[in-house]
């Protein structure tokens, strides 16, 4: 009886607490990175927006002041014209124009003082002071012009007013030029900032997007890992339950024989031959139980890493010949041929475990060739490895079972192999031993025409050590 499902005991997982810490560490790192990316993007945006805003403000203000200075300067020039007009023809209308020009001028200047820097304030204060002096001098001009004394009016204009106004105009012009330069500089910075923002924005956006995507993947991986771990734990507990069921199942079958045959011996009237036969049956089942227990313990030790390999120099050909000799003594129904490749060097291996591999594989070959048939063992030196093949002409293995047979408690059974009594652990042990020797084992088969087991063992490296995982 074999259970259809393979029982494989996976390596014990790390404790749930450790996993939770790991997981949190990963998630926290991912969150931190996400926050970092968002903060960087925000800082970039704020910086770009702030720079643009301040430069726009600066440029606007400089432009405004520049315009005001320009207006003041042109008004001063205009005022000169209205002065001249009044001197040429002193009339009430022209006087009103002259007065209006001076009033508006003062208002504009006050606006500059209100919006500008302290330097602007000082300049405006000076201009206004000069302007007051100018207004006082202008009274003289107006009086002279009104009295018809054009010569005096011209004199006042040329000798009093112009010396007051000229240097002032120069200073206003200088202030205007300064403000024009400032506006130009602000526009230059604005232009550069806008340009760099345009260039960097897609780049920053792309980097940000890539980072967000990467982090998203990280989250997703974390989540998947968590799910996988839960599944693993579920699988493990299911495997454990199945293992317990299988073990109890495997033990109950021989126990049924032992109990049944012993009861027959106790309760029935039996001939001596029958007693002997049933005792032999009990013996078979008891041996099977013993084999089952020792195989189980072996396998458990190997899988939990508790089995240490005692590596020695092993002559594979000699080991095979010795094992085959023992089989030939015990079983005469199966001619065993041994073909050795002379080039195979001495290996570094555990001879007892390697013998166990050969014994299990040879035993299998014999068991699955119930009607006799030759069994061939062959070694071959290949690139970097030694290949050992054991072929029989028995019932063969269905293709879908070729890998499964190495799982625990999986036996190939068919009408031809009903007499086969194994523990279902032999091939699992073989695989464990071969893997511990850093080798591989696999099976090939032609259904109905026998199977071949291939064992590949690494050659010893120059240092003389077999790397054992």
């Amino acid at each position, binding site marked *: 009886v074999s259970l259809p499902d393979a029982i494989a005991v996976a390596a014990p997982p790390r404790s749930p607490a450790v996993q939770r810490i790991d997981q949190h560490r990963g998630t926290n790192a991912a969150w931190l990175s996400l926050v970092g990316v968002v903060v960087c993007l925000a800082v970039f945006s704020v910086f770009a927006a702030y720079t643009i805003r301040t430069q726009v403000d600066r440029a606007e203000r400089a432009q405004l002041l520049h315009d005001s200075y320009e207006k003041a300067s042109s008004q001063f020039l205009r005022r000169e014209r209205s002065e001249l007009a009044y001197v040429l023809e002193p009339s009430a209308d022209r006087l009103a124009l002259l007065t209006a020009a001076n009033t508006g001028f003062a208002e504009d200047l006050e606006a500059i003082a209100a919006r500008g820097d302290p330097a602007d304030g000082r300049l405006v204060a000076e201009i206004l002071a000069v302007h007051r002096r100018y207004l006082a001098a202008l009274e003289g001009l107006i009086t002279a012009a009104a009295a018809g004394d054009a010569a005096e009016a011209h004199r006042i204009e040329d000798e009093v007013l112009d010396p007051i106004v000229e240097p002032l105009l120069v200073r206003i012009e200088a202030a205007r030029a300064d403000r024009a330069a400032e506006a130009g500089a602000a526009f230059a910075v604005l232009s550069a900032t806008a340009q760099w923002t345009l260039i960097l924005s897609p780049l920053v956006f792309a980097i940000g997007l890539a980072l967000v995507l990467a982090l998203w993947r990280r989250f997703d991986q974390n989540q998947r890992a968590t799910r996988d771990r839960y599944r693993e734990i579920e699988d493990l507990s299911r495997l454990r339950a199945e293992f317990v069921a299988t073990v109890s199942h495997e033990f109950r079958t021989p126990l049924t024989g032992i109990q049944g045959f012993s009861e027959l011996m106790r309760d029935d009237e039996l001939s001596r031959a029958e007693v002997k036969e049933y005792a032999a049956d009990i013996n*078979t089942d008891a041996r099977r139980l013993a084999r089952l227990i020792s195989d189980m313990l072996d396998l458990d030790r190997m899988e939990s890493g508790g089995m240490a390999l005692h590596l020695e120099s092993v002559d594979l050909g000699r080991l095979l010949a010795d094992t085959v000799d023992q089989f030939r003594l015990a079983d005469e129904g199966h001619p065993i041929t041994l073909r050795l490749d002379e080039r195979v060097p001495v290996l570094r291996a555990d001879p007892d475990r390697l013998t166990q591999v050969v014994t299990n594989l040879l035993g299998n070959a014999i068991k699955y060739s119930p009607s006799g048939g030759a069994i061939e063992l062959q070694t071959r030196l290949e690139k970097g490895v030694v290949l050992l093949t054991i072929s029989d002409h028995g019932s063969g293995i269905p293709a879908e079972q070729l890998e499964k047979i190495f799982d625990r408690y999986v036996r190939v059974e068919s009408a031809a192999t*009903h007499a086969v009594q194994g523990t279902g652990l032999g091939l699992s042990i073989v695989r464990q031993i071969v893997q511990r020797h850093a080798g591989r084992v696999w099976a090939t088969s032609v259904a109905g025409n026998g199977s071949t087991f291939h064992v590949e063992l690494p050659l010893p490296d120059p240092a003389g050590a077999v790397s054992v995982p």
Partner: protein
Amino acid sequence: MTAVDRSSPRIARVVFCEDEVQIRKLIELAMRSTTHAIEITPNGREGLAAIERLPPDLIVTDLSMPEMSGFDLADAVHARPPLQHIPIVFMTASVQRGDITQFAAHGAAGYLAKPFSPRELREQIDRLIGGAPKGPATGPVADEPIP
């Protein structure tokens, strides 16, 4: 098909399905002292063939067997109207709570937990074909003193 006489012990045909050679032998020996006509097959498929060829009064089958499991055999038997009435006993090495409800779901008339003794096997068979009142699926009586 013969009508089942449930009033007294009699000769009945019993088909067994069991893949373990030792247990097949044990069944054969256990049934030697009875008058029943037995046929022992190594798996569900051959068991079903034997059942269809000559419908038995009782089927006793192992659960996990190659080619066709005991449950598959029971389902196949129940799917065939002329065979539906035949009681089926499952022999199993794992009798746990979940298994017993599964036996009922597959229409078991009874079950035998391994390891079982030849006497338990005979008693279970007699209970089902020998006229004993047919109760719900129950296991064997464990460890009774041998008379």
